[in-house]
């Protein structure tokens, strides 16, 4: 029973995709929407291939990916370290957990103009905004994972003579691991989204920069090709981190 229903779900998904493409094509037929506002699909897909040849996208992709990797590393190291330190004391958890959760709800993108002043138009300001936004889910999940490990596990380990290090390494860490991993996955994704957002606001290079300068030149068809590419990169990142999370969970089981 399971297999056909899963196949059916995929077929419906595919159907929706085809319907969207069909609607797009139909809307751009003669007498439809102005091609300056919505370019027809076929030139967009043709332009997509040009991205890898004449209209080389690689330098800009490299800029964005570098910013992303740096931001993710900074946010992971700072978020996990701070989360670990806070989780060491119940008092610190009571003070900082609500504080950080409150800060998380503030739209951090509002800091971007400030970061532009601090770090300039180059990659610095993008790394800063990506790090800021990715930091919160990582630190909050690290606290949630480590501070709320089932007390029964800790009592049992203590009764068998576990040292502080053994307790952390063999009990706390594996118990918290899935929750921390979820934080890291969310951090990876929001870092990418906010870096792209930052690049479209103000930048010198990167995927977002290309898209916004094409829009300013009214080259909507090429702009759409670039958007398509950015979407694909976002999907690839999502697939990779989701896969890594599943792998990590299995490895710790």
């Amino acid at each position, binding site marked *: 029973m399971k297999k056909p229903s899963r196949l059916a779900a995929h077929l419906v998904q595919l159907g929706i995709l085809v319907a969207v493409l069909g609607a797009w094509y139909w809307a751009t037929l003669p007498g439809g929407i102005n091609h300056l506002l919505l370019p027809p699909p076929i030139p967009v897909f043709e332009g997509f291939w040009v991205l890898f040849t004449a209209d080389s996208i690689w330098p800009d992709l490299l800029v964005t990916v570098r910013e992303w990797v740096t931001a993710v590393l900074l946010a992971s190291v700072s978020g996990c370290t701070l989360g670990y330190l806070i989780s060491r004391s119940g008092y610190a958890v009571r003070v900082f957990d609500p504080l950080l959760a409150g800060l998380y709800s503030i739209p951090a993108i509002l800091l971007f103009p400030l970061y532009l002043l601090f770090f300039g138009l180059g990659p610095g300001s993008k790394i800063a905004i990506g790090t800021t936004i990715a930091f919160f889910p990582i630190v909050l999940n690290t606290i949630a994972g480590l501070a709320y490990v089932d007390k*029964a*596990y800790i*009592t*049992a*380990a*203590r*009764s*068998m*003579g*576990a*040292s502080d290090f*053994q307790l952390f390494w*063999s*009990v706390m860490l*594996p*118990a918290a*691991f899935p929750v921390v991993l979820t934080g890291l996955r969310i951090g990876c994704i929001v870092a990418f989204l906010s870096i792209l957002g930052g690049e479209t606001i103000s930048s010198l290079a990167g995927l977002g920069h290309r898209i916004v300068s094409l829009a300013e030149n009214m080259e909507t068809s090429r702009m759409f090709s670039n958007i398509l590419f950015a979407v694909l990169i976002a999907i690839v990142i999502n697939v990779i981190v989701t896969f890594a999370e599943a792998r990590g969970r299995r490895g*710790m*089981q």
Partner: protein
Amino acid sequence: MSGAEAVIRVDSVSQAFGAEGDPRRVVALESASLDIARGELLCLIGPSGCGKSTLLNIIGGLASPTTGQVTIDGHVVRGPSPQKVAFVFQENTLFPWRTVIDNVKLGMAFQGVAKSERQERALQSLRAVGLADFCDHYPGQLSGGMKQRVQLARALGLKTEILLMDEPFAALDEQTRMVLGEDLSVLLAQTGKTIVFVTHSLAEAVFLADRVAVLTARPGRLKKLIHVEEGHPRKSNFMTSSKLNGLRNELYELLHEEIRKTMIERGEVREGA
């Protein structure tokens, strides 16, 4: 058990939660004294909240008493003593990210057993509880009864002289706990350990114990000690014997008024009902 040396001495132990004078202060245990002989199986029974588990945790060094002290082999208990005392808990405390055998081995690692010895010893104790075929399963793949047997295997693997069991079968259905009780009686008769076993079940207490210590409603005091003169291991026909039933009824009489007292205090039944 008179004449045998006492390995565990509980000396007027009291345990209160909350500061003195606080209206919410709860006295869980009040000057409980008890000697437990080497090789004895003692069951602690009493109404909910009478401090049975508290007493067990104090004996095992997981909690410290407000007043009084516990000594094991003449040494005052001030914290967990993993070389001497092993626990089997009511809730499942197996680590779900480790296989059955790795759970047993991890306990030994905590206790300080040499790495080369762990595999053989873990297999031995899993064989003793009849789960040698489930070494590579994860706890999540086992039934409740099997999980408790693995917890028992983990405790046995520590080769301690004393075993403290806190309602280990409480979460299981009656048929499973009957079978586990019989197996436990056989197993424990072989190991010769000193065991303190907390339970709610009157029949289970009589079936397993050399002595049953009945505690009063809160604050828990020792109300009576009942001797069960019956050799180990006990067979299933002991469960249906008139001797067991007589002792069980005696326990029921002792506990009945204590349980009613507890429930009136909690407002669960009315006085005189």
